[in-house]
Structure formats: structure tokens, C-alpha cells
């Protein structure tokens, strides 16, 4: 069953999603949102970084128009996710709903796993993975909004350790892509640029900027290989 495989393979995401969702629930309630408003934000927007920005800007008294523009700007990177996995997605009327769950992590998982699955399992796989991740995000938010302080008092280290599931998962998804010198240069430089930008506080801009710089290096390395450099695959 495709959906079971999808849900099982998305399970490592929970280690990253639940602690961050709990933090979001706590932050939103502290910023003045009600428990139901907080849960609705996670259910309907369902995009980590932009949700934190949304509540922070509202708490700071920013104009609503600016809140909307800035939040959408952070989510703009999502426009490349759908087209990148489109060749492996079957036609279905459910995509309007299912694409709501196309987060960074589900995209990373889908881009790596969908090409390896039989065509008839792909819709089920995506649905299982997406629904589990969405459910964990909403439940984590509710737990954080209702009992966040108690949870962090009981398990103070859990929120610090479990989010390492995300870099570990990204690493595993990326490892098979180091197939040539060109790809190694592009991927290595993208990781380094993203780390540097994050260290200097540009977390929100780091994903598109680092990916763009990696793409530039990819094409430069390819050009170099073609114009007399070392042959490359």
C-alpha cells in the first residue's frame, strides 16, 4: 500500500516537526493569539518560518498588509517545488488539496523517493507522507498552545535534540546525489553558503540565495568541463 509506505517514510520528519510546532504554539499564545487562532494558523498556512514571522509581526503591531506581503515573500520558494516533482505525480482532482502539504521537507522526501516508486503507488505515497506531516504539525501546535510550558518543563532537552532529525534526513536524501565533480561542487557550495547566511542571521533568505549560487556554480563547472577542463558526468 503506497500511503502506508509514505506515512512510514515520513515518520523521521516528526522528530523535527513536533518540537518546532510545540514552540510555535507557545510563541503564538504568548504573543496574544487564542488557542484556536494558533491552531488555525498552523492548519491553514502550514509553513514554519512564515508562521513565526506572521505572529512576531502581529505582536509588534505591524500593518496587516505588510504582514501578508512579508509572509508570502518567505513562502515564495515553494513555487519551484511542484514543477520539480510534477513528472512523477499522476493526474488527480485532489491536487488542490494535496499540494497544501508540499512543504520543504515533503518536497525533499518526494523528490528523492517518487522516482523510485511504481507509478500506481505515487499518489498514495504522497498522500500518506503529506497527511502524517500535516497532522503532526497541527497536533504539535495544539500541544504547544495548550500545554507548551509544562511540556518544556518536563522534557527540557527533547526540543533541543529531536529537531536534529531534519538535517539527518536531508543528509540521507542528498548523499546519493554526489555522483560527479560538478554535482559535488554545486551541492557542497550550496550547503556552505546556506550555513554562512544562517550564521549571519539571514535565515529566511538563505534557501533561495544558496540554491541560486549553487546553480550558478553548477553551470560554471559544467562550462569549464566542456571547454577543456576535466571531463565530467
Amino acid at each position, binding site marked *: 500500500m503506497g500511503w502506508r509506505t509514505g506515512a512510514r517514510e515520513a515518520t523521521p520528519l516528526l522528530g523535527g516537526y513536533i518540537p518546532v510546532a510545540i514552540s510555535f504554539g507557545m510563541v503564538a499564545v504568548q504573543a496574544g493569539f487564542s488557542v484556536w487562532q494558533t491552531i488555525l494558523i498552523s492548519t491553514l498556512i502550514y509553513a514554519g518560518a512564515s508562521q513565526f514571522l506572521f505572529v512576531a509581526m502581529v505582536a509588534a503591531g505591524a500593518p*496587516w498588509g505588510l504582514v501578508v506581503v512579508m509572509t508570502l515573500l518567505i513562502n515564495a520558494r515553494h513555487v519551484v517545488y511542484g514543477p*520539480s516533482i510534477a513528472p512523477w505525480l499522476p493526474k488527480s482532482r485532489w491536487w488542490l488539496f494535496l499540494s497544501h502539504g508540499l512543504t520543504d521537507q515533503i518536497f525533499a522526501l518526494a523528490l528523492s523517493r517518487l522516482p523510485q516508486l511504481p507509478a500506481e503507488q505515487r499518489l498514495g505515497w504522497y498522500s500518506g507522507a503529506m497527511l502524517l506531516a500535516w497532522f503532526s504539525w497541527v497536533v504539535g501546535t495544539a500541544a504547544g498552545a495548550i500545554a507548551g510550558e509544562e511540556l518544556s518543563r518536563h522534557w527540557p532537552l527533547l526540543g533541543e535534540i529531536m529537531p*536534529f532529525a*531534519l538535517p*539527518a534526513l536531508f543528509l540521507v536524501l542528498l548523499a546519493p546525489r554526489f555522483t560527479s565533480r560538478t554535482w559535488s561542487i554545486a551541492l557542497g557550495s*550550496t550547503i556552505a553558503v546556506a550555513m554562512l547566511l544562517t550564521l549571519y542571521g539571514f535565515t529566511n533568505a538563505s534557501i533561495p540565495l544558496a540554491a541560486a549560487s549553487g546553480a550558478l556554480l553548477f553551470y560554471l563547472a559544467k562550462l569549464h568541463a566542456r571547454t577543456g577542463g576535466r571531463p565530467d558526468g
Partner: protein
Amino acid sequence: MDNGFWLALLLVSAGTLCMRFLPLRWMQRHLLKQKHKGGLAAIPGWLSVLGPLMIAAMLGVSLVPAAAGWSAWFATLLGALSALMAWLWTKSLGWPVLAGVSSYGVVILLARITTGS
């Protein structure tokens, strides 16, 4: 804040959904058209390059520890190496993540015990 909140929530939710759904829909139609014309249904080359690089960027962002200090960096290094070794051994998804989180957690715990914080 109520009216403004509901309108902003609606606009951000609808806008984010559009950014996820419309490009996917457009590419699905584009691929179908290519197929009907008898051509090879493929996404543009730059998009197949950008996809893995977006994952690499997410990895870079998530590798930077939330808490500063040598122990967090050492835990990150050890966690990443453990995940990589487990992947080389099992070629699976779940075990490397478990290995990475466990190694990372052990270092963080040991650092807490030794520093007494």
C-alpha cells in the same frame, strides 16, 4: 485585531496554497501537452538542477545549531557523520536518522552533565 487577523490569515493561506498548487498544475499541463505532441515529457533542465540544490540549502540551514557553543557544533558533526555512516551501511531512510539523532543527543547530554547546566 480580529477583522484584520482573519483577512490576513485568509490571504496568506490562499497565497501560499496558490504558490504550491498553480506551478504544479501548470507543469502537469505542460508535460501532458508535450506528451500529446509526441515529444519527450520532461521538465526544464534548470529545474532538475534547482531541486536537489534546494534540499542542499535546507540541509545547510538546518545544520547550524540553534544554541551557540562548541558542544552543539561537535554534536552536529558527530550526528551528521553517524547518519552518513548508517546510510552507507543500510541505504535506508529511518536508521540513519535514528543514528544521527542518537549521536547528537548523547553529545548534548554529556555536555550538559560535564558543564552542570
